[in-house]
C-alpha cells in the first residue's frame, strides 16, 4: 500500500490526531492527557484483539457452515437462543470485540435474531463483569440487573428482528460474506 492510499484509508483518524495536536499546542496539559488516553486505548485494543481475530480465522476455516446453521441458524429454536446468550455472556472484553465475532457468525449462517441476542449478551451479561459488579455493588444489585436483562435482551432482539426489514438484513449478510 502506498502512502497516498494509507492517508486516504485513515483520513478520519489522521484528522482527529491533527485536532489533538492543535489542542496540545494551545493546551499542553489537556492535549497530553488526550494522547495518553488514546495510546492507552490502542494498547488495550492491541492486547485483546489479536487472539480474537486469530480464533475467528481458525473458526472460519475449520467450522463447517452446516454445523453453525444446525446450532444457531434458522430453526435452531430455543437451543439457538440459549447458546447465543451463553456465548455472549462467556465473552471478555469491550463491545467492539463482539462485532467481528458477529460478522463471522453471520457468514456461517447464524440466524439474525441470534446474532442480536449474542451482541446484547456480550454488552451486558458478561460473567467476568458480573463477578466484579457483585463485589462492588452487592449481590442483589448485580443479580437483579442480570436477571432482568435476559427477557430484555430477548425483547430487544425480537423488536429489531421485526423492524429491521428484509433488505437491511440481506445487506448485512451480503456485507459479511464479502468482508472475510
Amino acid at each position, binding site marked *: 500500500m502506498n502512502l497516498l492510499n494509507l492517508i486516504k484509508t485513515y483520513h478520519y483518524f489522521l484528522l482527529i490526531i491533527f485536532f489533538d495536536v492543535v489542542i496540545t499546542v494551545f493546551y499542553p496539559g489537556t492535549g497530553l492527557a488526550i494522547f495518553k488516553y488514546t495510546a492507552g486505548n490502542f494498547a488495550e485494543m492491541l492486547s485483546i484483539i489479536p487472539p480474537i481475530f486469530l480464533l475467528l480465522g481458525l473458526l472460519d476455516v475449520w467450522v463447517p457452515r452446516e454445523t453453525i446453521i444446525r446450532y444457531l441458524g434458522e430453526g435452531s429454536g430455543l437451543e439457538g437462543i440459549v447458546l447465543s446468550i451463553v456465548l455472549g455472556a462467556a465473552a471478555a472484553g469491550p463491545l467492539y470485540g463482539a462485532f467481528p465475532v458477529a460478522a463471522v457468525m453471520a457468514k456461517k449462517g447464524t440466524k439474525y435474531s441470534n446474532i442480536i441476542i449474542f451482541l*446484547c449478551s456480550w454488552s451486558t451479561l458478561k460473567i467476568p463483569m458480573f463477578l466484579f459488579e457483585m463485589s462492588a455493588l452487592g449481590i442483589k444489585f448485580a443479580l437483579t440487573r442480570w436477571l432482568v436483562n435476559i427477557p430484555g435482551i430477548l425483547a430487544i432482539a425480537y423488536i429489531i428482528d421485526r423492524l429491521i426489514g428484509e433488505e437491511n438484513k440481506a445487506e448485512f449478510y451480503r456485507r459479511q460474506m464479502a468482508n472475510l
Partner: protein
Amino acid sequence: MFTLLLYLLALSGLLISFGKDRHKTRLALIKGWKAFTNILPDFAVVLALIGIMLTHLSPHTIAALVGKNSGFPGMLASSIVGSITLIPGFVAFPLAKSLLDRGAGIMQMAVFVSTLMMVGVVTAPLESRYFGKKETILRNSLSYVFSFIVAIIIGMVVGA
C-alpha cells in the same frame, strides 16, 4: 486474566490447526489478518475519539454531574453520561459504589451502569460499519429505554 485465557485458547488452537493442516492454518491467519486490517481504520477513529472523551469526562466530572442530582433529572443525566462514555467496568463499578455511599440514588446508578454497558454512542460508527445504520439506531435506542426499566426494577428490589 481472561485475556490470558483468550491467548492460550488462540495459541493452542493455532498449534492444533498447524498440526492438522498447514495450508488451512495459513489460510486462517490470512483471513484473520484481513478481517483485522479491514476494520482497523474505523477502530483507530473510535479509539482516538474515546481518548478525547476520557480526557474531558473523568470520574471526577461524572461525580459532579450525577452525585448532586436526584430524581428523574439525575437519572437522565447519568444515562447520558453512561451512553457516551466508555469506562471500563473495574472503574465504573467502584465509582458507582462511592457515589452511592455519598448519597446518590440507586436508580441513578443503575441507569448509569446499564447504559454504560448497553449503549455506545462513540462505538456507533463502528457498529454501523458492521450492522448498518438501522440496526445501530434501533439497538442503541431500545437499550437506552430498557436501561430505565432495569433501573426502576433495581430500585424496587434493592431500595426496598
